């Protein structure tokens, strides 16, 4: 088992408030790692650092062994588009889907493949495959995002992220804005998809049940630091700090009702 992504001593501050401090984290091949914690704990910041939307103040991020946080000239040596090459090996899904409203579902999904000049039949085949995989009706591909339901939009967003068969899938609260029934259905589908593709995934959520259901590894983050990582059982039975117990019981109390 090896790490696809490694964060080594990564820190990032915004103004006075420290977002993340000296984070060390490995994202293992083929596993689903879940970042969980209260809002504002820095979990989304970690995702944004990995995809290169923001640069760390210190520390290194290694993607498949290559340092992607090096200074600009070094990143350029990564080839052609530098960080863009890495981005094309990563899929990214955000809460509201991040679909472009002026493009149809198909247009959104194929955007990057078209940009890279992929062959038409290749794209068509991949699209059908993805529709089956994500249980999205093919006849809705011509619709614009505004003509789709919230759940359908997330499925389109997932297809867009998976289109180029990324090595890593980043999901930032992908189900956060959905109603419970749709959410449960998507959770189930996501689990199947990850298993079927043996997809390396990093998921951000604040819902412990979702984390436990989808995650192979749960990473609990608070105030910009990793508090504990392991399985739900580890967290429950061997809490590293009172915060861990508190966080778990706060969420469980709802489930008990």
């Amino acid at each position, binding site marked *: 088992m090896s790490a696809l992504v490694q964060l080594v001593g990564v820190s990032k501050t915004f103004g006075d408030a420290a977002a993340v401090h000296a984070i060390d984290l490995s994202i293992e091949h083929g596993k689903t790692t879940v970042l969980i914690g209260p809002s504002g704990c820095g979990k989304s910041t970690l995702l944004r650092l990995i*995809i290169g939307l923001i640069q760390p103040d210190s520390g290194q991020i290694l993607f498949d062994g290559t340092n992607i946080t090096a200074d600009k000239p070094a990143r350029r040596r990564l080839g052609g588009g530098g960080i*863009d090459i890495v*981005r094309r090996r*990563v899929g*990214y899904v955000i809460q509201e889907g*991040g679909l*472009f409203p002026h493009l149809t579902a198909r247009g959104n999904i194929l955007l990057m493949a078209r*940009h890279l000049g992929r062959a038409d039949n290749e794209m068509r085949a991949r699209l059908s495959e993805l529709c089956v995989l994500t249980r999205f009706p093919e006849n809705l591909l011509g619709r614009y995002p505004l003509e789709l339901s919230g759940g359908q939009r997330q499925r389109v967003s997932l297809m867009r992220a998976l289109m180029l068969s990324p090595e890593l899938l980043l999901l930032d609260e992908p189900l956060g804005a959905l109603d419970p029934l749709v959410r449960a259905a998507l959770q189930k589908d996501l689990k199947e998809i990850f298993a079927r593709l043996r997809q390396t995934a990093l998921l951000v959520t604040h819902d412990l049940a979702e984390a436990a259901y989808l995650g192979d590894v749960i990473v609990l983050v608070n105030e910009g630091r990793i508090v504990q990582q392991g399985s739900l059982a580890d967290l429950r039975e061997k809490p590293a700090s009172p915060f861990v117990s508190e966080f778990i019981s706060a969420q469980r109390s709802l489930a008990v009702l």
Partner: protein
Amino acid sequence: MNRIRKAGKQETFGRQLLFSCVAAFLIFSPGSLPAKPVVVGSKKFTESYVLGEIAKRTLSDAGIPVEHRQGMGGTIILWEALRTRQIDIYPEYTGTITQEILKRTDQLTFEQIATELGKVGIGMTEPLGFSNTYALVMLRTRAEKLGLRTITDLKNHPELKFGLTHEFLDRQDGWRPLTQRYQLNPQSVSGIDHALGYAAIAKGSIDVKDAYSTDSKISENDLVVLEDDRQFFPQYKAVFLFRFALPEPAVSALRKLEGTIDAVKMTRLNAEAERTTNYTRAASLFFEPNATSTTTFGETFPHKLARWTGRHLELAGFSLLLSVLVGIPLGIFASRGGAIGHIILGFAGIVQTIPSLALLALLVPLPFFGISVRTAITALFLYGLLPIVRNTATGLQDIPRALRESAIALGLSPAARLWQIHLPMASRSILAGIKTSAVINIGTATLAALIGAGGLGEPILSGLNLNDHATILQGAVPAAILALLVQSLFHLLDRVLIPKGLRL
């Protein structure tokens, strides 16, 4: 309707500003070499138009290619155009040359004037025959009732209301020195457009106004000229000014006009021009005094309308194209914020706050511009810039951060992000900006006629000049219709250019 205008007495509210700008800028630029045909210019009032047409006809009869740029503006504009070789000839008045061009407060003899002009390479014909000077006029009935005959008599009636043209109020040989000479101290003095002043005096809302001695309106409205008993007003003998570089055949043709137009004849030509609103036809009366009024001269109305509209669209369309080509890239830079963004938006904002007339006036004295279509298009272009820059910038800035980041995270190159994501998403806002610019341009382009660039402003201006509502509407109605058409055209463009997904 009749209206006779004298050298530079035409006044518009922008004239004062134009004057000071030109004076401040007095740059004697080399300008462009004259085009092959001799170019005759004229000022923006009936008599100047007619004299310009007469010169054109005279040269053309002598086999010299000639064109006439009608109604280019006031004294300083014409003088600058002559100095910078944009025109070769224009009609002027000796009093105006002394006061406004040579800036002399003393009276110069005709020979002295010719000598002074010669020093700057400008020639002057002998007087054409008539002299046109300022006069104060009032209704004959009113003057008789009050027993007024001379300007001195006005002193005893401070209750009389004076309605004077703006230029007369400002001129060195105008109102202020006149009041000093005659010791006048009226209670009410207001500025009023020359043409409107006649209507005002007829209605009795003013009692006294300034006029020109060859003005056919004076007899038509049964007005009486108050005698200039202290010889205050200088002589205004009509002459043609020309550049020394003008070829000899053209000069001799022009000189044939010396002493051929007396005051009676000029008054008749002016009256004819104003009656028919056709200057070519009025000028032809000079050559064929017996021509019947059924003879048609010049172009038909549909033809004129097509010419005005064509030029108008040319002005508005070309300037809009420039605004779009420059405005969108500037808007893209401005959307990135920072110092450059602020400078771009600030600059475009400042340009927009300059009144359109003032912007035209500011450009006229600059070397590259002058009295030309170029100037009009540049002013319109600058004017149309802000809505496009601002709407492009805000349209781009309004794209949600999550979507910008999604485009980055996908790995799209910056160019692809701009063309495939940002610009389509901002298209509604950008198009709205272009639409605003287009409608503003259609309206503002009417001002282009002020600097002789033509368009639908041409009939509006001459209509205002003649106080002829029909002529005003010939320009105003098509301009309004054009604006509405442009508006609906953009409505259609919205459907074509804004992606469907944004219109749901």
